[in-house]
């Protein structure tokens, strides 16, 4: 398997006045294509900070991050969007869908930003919304969708971009167990099928079995790693 993300001694320190808080401390890891990795740990353990750094939206204090071989820690603000555009998609706990746009328009917006041809975009958005089970509701506004359906739109949006890396922050946080599991299963199946590298930050232990690998975090460090028995 090819390495999608490689970090070495990745550290993030937040300074609050004179007090320094080490949110992530010397994390070294390799995340590969085609694997679904769970980042588990209690609140404040550094999961989200780590996810933000490997998602190129938060700069580390120390250490290095390579995305498909590109060292991104020294890159300036004008280059980083291109890296994100090419390699990374996100799924958030709060869905972050434009309320004024229908499900399909939310997916199409990302495709438009990626510069994908209109006809190709339309077909891809329709296909993905069908795959996530929303073929009947693709012209609904987010307000007319349930939480689970909204998250499935977010999954379709993340997959539509064709980014090899998908980072999901507490994707089941606003969903009940059944809906959360359904969303995660869809995400896993599509990711494995399309050889994406999926990193999910969660504190929901009930979905542990979805992951190929679980990285357990505490106090900014990875304290344990579990692999799925195939």
């Amino acid at each position, binding site marked *: 398997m090819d390495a999608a993300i490689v970090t070495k001694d990745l550290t993030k320190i937040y300074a609050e006045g004179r007090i320094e808080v080490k949110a992530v401390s010397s994390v070294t890891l390799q995340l590969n294509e085609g694997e679904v990795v769970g980042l588990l740990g209690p609140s404040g353990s550094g999961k*989200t900070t780590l*996810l*933000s750094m490997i*998602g190129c*939206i*938060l700069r580390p204090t120390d250490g290095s991050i390579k995305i498909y071989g590109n060292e991104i820690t020294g890159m300036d603000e004008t280059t980083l*969007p*291109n*890296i*994100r*555009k*090419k390699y*990374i*998609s*996100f799924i*958030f*706990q*709060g869905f*972050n*869908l*434009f*309320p*004024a*746009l229908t499900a399909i*328009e939310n997916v199409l*917006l*990302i495709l438009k*930003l*990626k510069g994908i041809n209109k006809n190709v975009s339309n077909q891809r958005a329709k296909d993905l919304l069908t795959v996530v089970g929303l073929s009947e509701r693709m012209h609904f506004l987010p307000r007319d969708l349930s939480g689970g359906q909204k998250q499935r739109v977010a999954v379709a949006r*993340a997959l539509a*971009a064709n*980014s090899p890396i998908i980072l999901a*922050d*507490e994707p089941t*946080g*606003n969903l009940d167990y059944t809906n959360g599991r359904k969303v995660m299963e869809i995400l896993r199946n599509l990711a494995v099928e399309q050889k994406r590298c999926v990193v999910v930050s969660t504190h929901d232990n009930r979905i542990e079995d979805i992951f190929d690998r679980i990285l357990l975090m505490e106090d900014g460090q990875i304290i344990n790693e579990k692999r799925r028995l195939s």
Partner: protein
Amino acid sequence: MFYVALKIISYDKVRSFITLLGVVFAVSLIFAQMGIYLGLMETSSIIIDHTPGDIWITSKNCKNFDFSQPLPEYLYYHVLSTEGVQWAEKLIVTWGIIKQKEGGTEQVEVVGYNPDTGIGGPWKMKIGDSRAVKNGNFTIVDDSAKRRLGDVKVGEYREVLWKRLEIVGISQDVKSFTTAPIIFTSYRLAQKLDPNWIGPDKTVFVIAKVSPKYSVEQVIKNLKKRLKGVDVYSKESFSMKTRLYWTIETGVGFSFLLTISISFLIGMLIVGQTIYNSTVEHIKEFGTLKAMGASNFDIYKLIFSQALINALLGYFMSLIITLLSVKIYEATEMVMVVNMWVNVLILGLTMLMCLSSALVSIRKIKKIDPAILFRG
């Protein structure tokens, strides 16, 4: 992005309606203020602009059309005999008192012109002929004077500067900037009406027409060399001088500029606040786009598109309101100028108003804290 912006605007109907109302209010006010200002300026130089001839000779340091000093009449002959002058004409502009039919008096601006040539006289007659003021105590009153002078009729007599004048015609479109109605008499009668100020050997302006083979600048140079103690202007520069006098010296321009600026500012605040609120409400969505590789510029396009839609909708609604209200202004004897030039200028101002109001939102986007994306 324009489509997405349109969807965002149409989604929140109440907010969009309030924004649109704000833009329409501000832009309509700008239209009205600018239109009235230009109307006033047009009125202030209306006789200069409608008088044939290329050059105006005035008293030294003359500030405008309405308050010029008398000149010796012989200068007319000097002008006429200057190289490059095709023809010349004299014109008197002075002030007088007119007695009202039912008692009381009003101030009037008296324009004395040569009825044989009609130069400087009324250019549009509602009743009568502009040559009718010749050889007698006759006057032509403009239709717009009715508000101040009452219902003036041809054949009636009015006392102007203690002389009984017969009204022989009603002119049209000679609105007065100073609010004192304009009346026309023959040149010779105007000299007699105010013998102490003008008298038989004085005029107020000499107007000259340049021969086809000469340029206006060249003839102005010749006249300046020949005539001492007077000012020589091209028609356009005298018209502009008059307009600038009223704009700058009286504070009229400043007052209009102030109102236009305040309207601009109000519009900017309303649009700015709504777009900013909308941006703050959608900050996570914008952040998500940014996280997925959209550049700041991509998101700026979305925000500027919202501002542009507000600007265009607001502008066209204001234009319709303004065009409908022109008739109302006309009914109150006010001149309101709405022409292509004004329309384009105000469209530019409206776009500037709305787009600059989006800058605060742009700043917000630029500073999106990625951490917000990771809060449920």
